[in-house]
């Protein structure tokens, strides 16, 4: 049999490479398509009542607050955005914090959107979505302070609310690094005042207090960094896998397209 000519060999190689490239592209697309958490059933099937019932504790500003019959806050906006993307009306069920999980378990509501810290010890009964907010401790200082994290506090001063988690963490760091001055105050706002007024080098407060303070003092050029995590997520019942896939997919999309950050920026 005659050997293929050089041109034929090149043509075969070209076709092979092209086929391989298409195969890889196809595989990547398939993987990407498969990774998107989309409901395999319609919203009507996910919510037989024709409405997404959202359990919420409207006593925790700025996540949820009740005024008369109206609810507003970050969690309310997030719930409405999720409902919009699922093309299903939303109904908020306001209740005490202690009753949230029980109401979900007993199917009085479909999801919980209520500044709930993700708690994997509850994973037998509940699934949590990706986090939408980190409420852990933050270290806040003047923008020009050469402090990047807790390890840079040696020899400086840090203020915090007396008795708070910030106090607890500051005491723990005192045993790890060169001594620093601790300045306890009655409230997180006083601790932040101390930094803004140049009395302390940094403040260690929870992210909610810290971000609200920065919002109220926009003239202050400050920056903050996370010290630990308290991650808030949306909770659904563990056996509601399709609903979890749907809501989690929406949270992921909102994280990627910036719409979640827009909602957060509205309140912080």
């Amino acid at each position, binding site marked *: 049999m005659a050997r293929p000519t050089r041109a034929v060999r090149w043509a075969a190689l070209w076709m092979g490479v092209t086929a391989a490239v298409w195969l890889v592209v196809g595989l990547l697309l398939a993987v990407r398509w498969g990774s998107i958490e989309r409901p395999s059933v319609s919203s009507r099937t996910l919510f037989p009542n024709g409405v997404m019932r959202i359990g919420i*504790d409207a*006593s*925790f500003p700025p996540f949820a607050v009740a005024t008369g019959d109206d609810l507003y806050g970050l969690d309310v906006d997030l719930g409405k955005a999720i409902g919009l993307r699922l093309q299903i009306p939303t109904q908020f069920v306001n209740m*005490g*914090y*202690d009753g949230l999980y029980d109401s979900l378990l007993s199917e009085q509501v479909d999801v919980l959107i209520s*500044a709930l*810290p993700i*708690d994997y*010890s*509850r994973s037998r009964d509940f699934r949590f979505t990706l986090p939408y907010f980190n409420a852990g401790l933050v270290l806040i200082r003047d923008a020009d302070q050469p402090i990047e994290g807790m390890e840079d506090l040696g020899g400086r001063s840090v203020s915090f*609310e*007396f*008795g*708070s*988690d910030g*106090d*607890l963490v500051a*005491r*723990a760091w005192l045993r790890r690094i060169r001594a620093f001055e601790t*300045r*306890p*105050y*009655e*409230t997180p706002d*006083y601790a932040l*005042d*101390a930094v803004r*007024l140049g*009395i302390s080098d940094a403040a260690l407060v929870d992210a909610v207090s810290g971000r609200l303070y920065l919002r109220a003092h926009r003239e202050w050029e400050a920056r903050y960094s996370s010290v630990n995590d308290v991650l808030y997520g949306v909770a659904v019942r563990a056996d509601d896998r399709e609903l979890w896939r749907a809501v989690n997919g929406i949270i992921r999309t909102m994280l990627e397209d910036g719409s979640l950050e827009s909602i957060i920026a509205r309140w912080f």
Partner: protein
Amino acid sequence: MRPFHPIQRFLPHVVRLLVCWGCLTALMPAPPRAPLESPRTVHTQNPEVCVHTRLIDEVYEWKIQRSLQMVREMGATTIVEFFPWAYAEPQEGEYDWESFDRIARHAKNQGLQVIARMGLVPAWARADGSERATTLNYLPDDSFDAFATFVATFAARYAGVMDHIIIWNEPNLSFEWGYRPVDPQDYVRMLKAVYQPVHAANPQAVILAAPLAPTLEPTGSPNGLDDLLYLEALYAAGAAPYFDALAMHTYGFTEPPEAEPESTALNFRRAELLHAIMAEYDDPQKPVFITESGWNDHPRWTKAVRPSERVAYTVRAFEWAKAEWPWMDRLCVWALRYPANTRGYPDNFTLITPDFQATPIYYAIQAYARGWSQGGRLWLDPPAP
């Protein structure tokens, strides 16, 4: 040369693996032990400081020991601990004291006094489950004597170590009364059944009538009964001769410790209203042991306060009680530590974390108990611009 048999080829590798495994196993740390220390004493300026512990469900003995060391270091003289009947007498007449013994020996070793709370009914002493649903707090009248026998046996075994014994917990709540309508007269019968056998078993024993839950539940409520009404009913039913001291629970909730007591309000000084009832029934001389008290600083609980308020209120409560309540013997804070986080608001009642990290309120109570902070300020003045 004969080829190696497969077993001969792999044998050296197997031997090496076994040697490595043996070495690694030998390097593994042994489970922590909890040998008794030389006997300790509590250094305190305020012996009324006490804390409720949660040791009975602790798996590791070293954690019991560490907890009690931290109680002593805090300057508290006394703990309150739950000793469930169902744990010690799972079958009638068959006792297993191990879990009780290890708490007793470590408390004694740390120089701590123990107030023992009795409760939790074993299955054999409850009503027939096939006839009606029962709970672990359900003790039928015909089992009062069995309960009395158990408490007397306990009192004899731990005489000199645990002389203060609380009979039951919060019987004015339906939940604590086996989900039955609460019944003060029935509780008096329980006290009467227990009192004489326990004193016969341990003449030094001090019987504490159960602390009542602070609640405003009206008469006829399925949930329970107002603690003031319940205490009155106890005295009216003739309870006085059958207890040597009264245990109380008094929480501050959202009010400071100095807030005026009112029959329609739940706050720290509600204890004064309970004591007024004792006086009304000519029983004011009996000592009062506040076996649960405190404030909570969970950010989401509606009955909580800010962390700084929790610390300040707790310290001021000790000061108030010492100055104003001569009838009070001990003021116990709920609670030292839980074996694991509950992931809810109850975590914010504790003084140390499950991994034994002391919280700021622990240090504040320590400073008070040991006399390090008389008149000292807890925090700085607000910064002035």
